[in-house]
C-alpha cells in the first residue's frame, strides 16, 4: 500500500530517455542540434558550465563499462551537476537486493537524474516506473542503447553532412546487440537505408520487419555502403554455438581491406567499442585515419550525452 500511495503522490512523471522507439523526430533533431554546441564547447580549454548546478546525477551501472560510464560522468560534470557513480555489479545486488529496492533507496536521496545500465532488457523501463526523477537508459540487455545511436548519428552527420539517403550497413552480432536495435530505429527515422549483415545464427527473428534489409554475405551487404558499423563480437559466442570458430568468422564477417572495396570509395567505419582487433575488424583498418571514425564517436558521445542531460533536466 505504501508503494501505491507514493506512486499517487507523483503528480507528473518526469521525462525519460528509455529508447529511440519512444522519441519523436523533433526531439531527435533538437538533441542533435544542441549536441553541436557542446562539441564546440568540449574543444575549448574552459569546458565547465553551470547549467546543471545543484542537480544530482547518479550513474547506476549493473554491467561493467568504461567508455559509456566515463562519458556520462564527464557530460554531467561539464554541465555542473554533482555526479555519483554506483557500480552495483559487485555490491547490493550480490546481497540479494532487487533492482526496484536499489532504485527506491537511491530515489530517497532525491537525485534529479538516474543513468542506468543493466543486463536485462526493460530494466530502465521498470526503474522509470518506480522513481520520481528522470531516467536515461545507458543500455538495457539487448534492447536499446539510445545515446549510442544518437552519438552515432551525430558522428555521421558531422562527417557526411547528412544522414538522409545514406546507406548504412550494420555488421556482426545483431541478435545480442542493443546498439544495432537503437541504430536501426534512429537511422530509419532519419531517412537512411539500413542494412544488417551477419551469420543467420546471430540475426534476430523477423529483423526485416524493423525496416532493414538483411544479408548473410558481407560483400553483398556492403555494396555501395556509405557507413559501415561494426559490432563487437563476444568471444564466448564463437565457441561453436553460434559460429564455428574465430577464424571462420574472421574470414567471412570481419571487415578488411578486401571486403571494404565493395563499399563506396569514401565509406567510413564505425564501432561502438570495445573492439576485438583481428576478430571483427582488421587491426590496420581500425586505425586507418582516412576510414575509421571510431575516435570521433567517442568525442561525440560526451556532447550528445550533455545534450540529453540538458534536455531532460532543463526543458521539462
Amino acid at each position, binding site marked *: 500500500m505504501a508503494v501505491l500511495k507514493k506512486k499517487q503522490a507523483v503528480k507528473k512523471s518526469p521525462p525519460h530517455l528509455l529508447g529511440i522507439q519512444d522519441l519523436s523526430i523533433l526531439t531527435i533533431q533538437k538533441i542533435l542540434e544542441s549536441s553541436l554546441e557542446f562539441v564546440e564547447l568540449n574543444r575549448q580549454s574552459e569546458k565547465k558550465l553551470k547549467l546543471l548546478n545543484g542537480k544530482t546525477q547518479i550513474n547506476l551501472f549493473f554491467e561493467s563499462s568504461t567508455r559509456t560510464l566515463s562519458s556520462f560522468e564527464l557530460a554531467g560534470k561539464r554541465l555542473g551537476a554533482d555526479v555519483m557513480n554506483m557500480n552495483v555489479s559487485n555490491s547490493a545486488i550480490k546481497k540479494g537486493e532487487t533492482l526496484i529496492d536499489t532504485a527506491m533507496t537511491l530515489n530517497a536521496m532525491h537525485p534529479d537524474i538516474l543513468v542506468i545500465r543493466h543486463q536485462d532488457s526493460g530494466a530502465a523501463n521498470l526503474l522509470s516506473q518506480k522513481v520520481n526523477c528522470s531516467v536515461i537508459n545507458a543500455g538495457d540487455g539487448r534492447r536499446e542503447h539510445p545515446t549510442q545511436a544518437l552519438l552515432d548519428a551525430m558522428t555521421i552527420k558531422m562527417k557526411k553532412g547528412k544522414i538522409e539517403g545514406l546507406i548504412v550497413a550494420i555488421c556482426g552480432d545483431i541478435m545480442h546487440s*542493443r546498439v544495432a536495435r537503437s541504430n536501426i530505429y534512429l537511422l530509419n527515422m532519419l531517412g537512411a537505408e539500413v542494412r544488417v549483415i551477419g551469420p543467420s545464427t546471430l540475426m534476430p*527473428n523477423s529483423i526485416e*520487419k524493423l525496416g532493414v534489409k538483411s544479408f548473410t554475405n558481407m560483400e553483398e551487404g556492403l555494396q555501395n555502403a556509405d557507413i559501415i558499423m561494426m559490432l563487437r563480437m563476444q568471444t564466448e559466442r564463437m565457441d561453436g554455438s553460434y559460429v564455428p570458430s574465430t577464424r571462420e568468422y574472421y574470414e567471412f564477417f570481419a571487415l578488411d581491406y578486401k571486403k571494404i572495396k565493395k563499399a563506396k570509395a569514401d565509406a567510413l567505419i564505425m564501432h561502438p567499442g570495445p573492439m576485438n582487433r583481428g576478430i571483427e575488424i582488421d587491426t590496420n583498418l581500425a586505425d586507418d585515419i582516412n576510414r575509421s571514425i571510431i575516435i570521433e564517436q567517442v568525442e561525440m558521445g560526451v556532447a550528445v550525452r550533455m545534450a540529453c542531460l540538458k534536455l531532460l533536466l532543463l526543458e521539462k
Partner: protein
Amino acid sequence: MKKKAIVNVRIIDPKNNIDQLGGILINELGQIEKSGPEITKENVGDIQIFNCQNKIAIPGLIDSRVFVGEPGFEYKENYRTLSEAALSGGVTSVVTMPNTDPVIDNVSTLDFIKRRARDKSIIKIYPLAALTKNIKGEEMCEFGLLNLRGAFGFTDGLRCVQNNRVMDHIFNYAKNKDSLIVQFIQDNELSKNGVINEGLVSTRLGLKGIPGVAEQIILDRDLRLLNEYKSKYHASLISTKKSLSIVEYWKKRSLQFTTSVSINNLSLNENDIGEFRTFLKLSPPLRSEEDRLALIEGLNNSLIDIIVSDHKPEDEESKRLTFQQAASGASGIETLLSLALELYHNKSCSLMTIIRSLTSNPAKLFGINAGSLEKNYPADIAILDLDKPWVIKKDNIRSKSKNTAIENKKLQGKVEKTFLNGNLVFDNK
C-alpha cells in the same frame, strides 16, 4: 442433508449433449437424483428450491492444471485460499501438479498432501505425482505404488523429461501400471533462457525467445514413442499452430491421446505483453495471433480436448523484477470460466465445446467421478449468468496471490452459485 431442487434453469450437460430447460433434483446424499424438463417448481414437493430464472446450470468445472503451494510455498497458495478462489469461478475439482517442495514423487509425500487436502480443502483435489524422481528427468517414479495410493497420473509439471531413453522406458513401463503420462512439452536447450515467444516482439523487446520448434520437437518425439507402446498420454499446453498439425497427423492415424491448452494462450497473444508486463510472462509463452486463432480452431476440431487455467500463483515480489528475472505463470482459476466464455461471446466456439473441455473431457481423462449432471453423479453444479458484465480487479481476487494476467479486463459471464456435493458453497449474492 435435505433434498433440494434447482428449477427453471437451462441445463447444459456436455457428456450427454444435453442443452435444455428444466430442473435438477438433488438427493439426501448430495447426488443428482434426476435432471430434466420434468423437474419443475410445482412437482418437486416441499423441499428447498433454487429458482434460477435465465441462468445456466453446468457441471462444476474440473481444472486440470493447478499449482497449489502446499507443501513448501504456502505463502503463494494453500488449499483453503485455492478452494475459495476456485468455487467463485465455478470450479469444484482440481488436478494438482507435483511441483512442490518437497516434490510429490513418493508415497509418503502423496499421503501427506492427500491428508492436507482432506482436512483443509473444500473443493475436490486430484493430485498428480511426479513422472521422475525429484522431477529431474532421470529416474522414473514408483508408478504402481503411487497409483495404489491415489495418484491420478504422472507429470513433471513445469518440467519436461528430456532424455529419450528415460522417456522410452517411462512409456514402456507406464503401460504395465495403466498410468497416465502428462507431459509439459518443451525442449530445454531450445528454450534455454527464453522468456517470450520468438518473433518480432522478442526482437523488439530484446528478450530471448522460445521458438515454437522447442514444443514441436518434444511433442513429435512423445507421439512417436506413444505409437510404439500405446500407453496413456496427455500433451499439456499446446501453444503453436504447427503443434496442432503434429496432433492432427497422429490422430488421423488413430493414435489415442489427449491434449490441453491454457486459457491464456486461447485469449491473449504476445502483443499483450506490451512494454514488459511481467504478469504476462507465461510458460508456454503467449504466442502470435495466428497461433491463437489456430488453437481455437483446434478446440473446435477436437484436436484439443481440455482447457486449463494453468493456475500458478506467484507473490508480487517474484513479479516485480525485470522480465528476464520475473517468475512465470499467472493466477487464473477464478477467471477460467469467464475468460473461456469470451470465446462464446465473440462467436469463436460453441457453449457446448467450451463447457465440455472444462468438465466431461477432463473427467474422462483422469477418471474423475464428476463433470456431468447425469443421475448418480455428485451434485457439483455451477449456476452461471451468461451475460453478466464484470471487471477483474486485483483487490477482488480471492487467490492468495494476485498475479492475474488480465487485470482490468472486462468480461461477460459470471458464476452466481456453486454447489459441491449438493451443498451451496458459493453464492455471489
